[in-house]
């Protein structure tokens, strides 16, 4: 369970998050949606202790993120940031292998290789495994980064806009992979999404943020209504139900 209690966060004097409280039980896919600048990424980086906590408390499975040793936390939670760049000259397999670092401090045993191979296969990277990262396209690189986060093998997976650069096929594949680890292995996935319909199709729960606060929280059917969406994004959009799922026609 991820517990976020009364978290506020300021960048210099600009408030980014104001008094956010949120409990995410173990297991399932939770989508964070909201307009640009709503504080979604900041919330995710606070949970993943990439930024120091200024006010409030966050713990994951009872481990407070600000005081738990980083190494211990790295075996519980994995994060993929938006726009992660890989400055180092690495092959895809090496990059994915870094996901195992928290477990063996760099020494890979048989079991690690099996996990790395599985992650590579899951994200369709087998053909690219020996290519250097810098020779890949944006979408391929993104898949390699997600595979690395997967290989970390944590119960909690925080993904900040992982669908960036992915084509329709791989976006759907990624969402289905997330769904299957949530269902099959009881993992908890918190994912920032801009494509609301992906959230509708694959998430159990949607948390909507705006102006540094949580403004709506519920199942896709509860959140994806014209009224709530207008309150979050500031314009009216059509919502149609297809195969029992609400789909937002925001392009119209």
């Amino acid at each position, binding site marked *: 369970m991820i517990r976020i209690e009364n978290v506020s966060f300021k960048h210099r004097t600009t408030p980014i998050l104001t008094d956010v409280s949120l409990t995410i039980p173990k297991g399932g896919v939770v989508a964070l949606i909201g307009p640009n600048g709503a504080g979604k990424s900041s919330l995710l980086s606070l949970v993943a202790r*990439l930024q120091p906590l200024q006010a409030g408390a966050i713990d994951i499975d009872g481990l407070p993120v600000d005081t738990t040793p980083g*190494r211990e936390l790295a*075996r519980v939670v994995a994060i993929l940031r938006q726009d992660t*760049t890989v400055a180092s*000259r690495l092959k895809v397999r090496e990059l994915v292998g*870094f996901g195992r670092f928290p477990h063996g*401090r760099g020494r890979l045993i048989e079991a690690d290789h099996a996990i790395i191979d599985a992650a590579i296969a899951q994200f369709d990277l087998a053909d690219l495994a020996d290519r250097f990262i810098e020779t890949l396209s944006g979408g391929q690189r993104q898949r390699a980064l997600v595979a690395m986060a997967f290989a970390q093998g944590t119960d909690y997976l925080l993904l900040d806009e992982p669908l960036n650069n992915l084509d329709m096929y791989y976006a759907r594949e990624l969402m289905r992979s997330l769904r299957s680890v949530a269902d099959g292995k009881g993992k908890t996935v918190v994912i920032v999404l801009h494509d609301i319909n992906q959230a509708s199709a694959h998430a159990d729960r949607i948390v909507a943020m705006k102006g540094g606060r949580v403004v709506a929280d519920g199942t896709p059917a509860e959140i994806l209504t014209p009224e709530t969406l207008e309150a979050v994004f500031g314009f009216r959009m059509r919502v149609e139900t297809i195969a029992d799922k609400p789909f937002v026609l925001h392009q119209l």
Partner: protein
Amino acid sequence: MRDRRLLGLAAAALAAAVAFLAIGLKGNIAFVLELRLLKLAALVQVGVAIAISTVIFQTVTGNRILTPSIMGLDALYLFGQMLMVFLLGGVGYVALDPQLKFGLEVLVLMALASALLLPMLKSRLDMGLMLLAGVVFGVLFRSLHSLLARLIDPNEFSVVQSASFANFNAVRTDLLVFAAIVTVIAAVIAWRARHVLDVVSLGPDTATGLGVGWAGTVTGLLLLVSALVAVSTALVGPVAFFGLLVAALAERIVDTRRHGVLLPAAALAGIVVLVGGQTLFQHALGNATALGVVIEFVGGLVFLLLLVLGSRK
């Protein structure tokens, strides 16, 4: 394949060392050999210290063009040395036990380096900014050094002046044992941290996500770099582009940034260039020019080349 290249480098380093010891051996062989061994030990240490410190520094800054000396760390070392002469007086400084003195200088450099550079390294800066800051820092440290040089007594100035120029012909052998201890310890720490260094090269966010605390790790690595810079500067004086040269050379040869391979490769390349170069200059070219000058010239060219080619990021 990489292992073979590493072995090739090791063989080249060994050949350079043997050539350095054996070529033109005549007269009192025991005496000459002892002299050469001492000098070889010093050169090997300098090569290893500069190579390792450069690789670590580049990894921490995520920047293939920066080296500790371009950031002015060796100038900072000389400044620390000058500061001690200033505070203790020339006589007091000379009276100090050289090893104690060296120990003090290492500590002063570590303190100064962490105070000045840590705030910059807490988060990775953009390369242009980092390079600019590095050049400014370098100038600052060198200016501070010359400011102090003007303030102190001319007699005291002569005490430190000899240490301010790179000289591979007159290495300080009195510090050898102490410096060797520092180099070996630092090299062992660097080797044991090779996997952590691989993770550090991914940047602060990814490293933190993988459980490597950024601030603590970077502080530790910077202290390590300071100790190594102190060793090489104390033994031969400041060399600006040598680290860049061997780090770039090693990376081209082993074609990887994994520190388990790159660190030994860079250290070996450092030995090859320094010991091999010195042998060449002493025997083939009859000491026509100083090795330091040539290394700086070639290293400077490499620096410009990397800048122009945009150094594969």
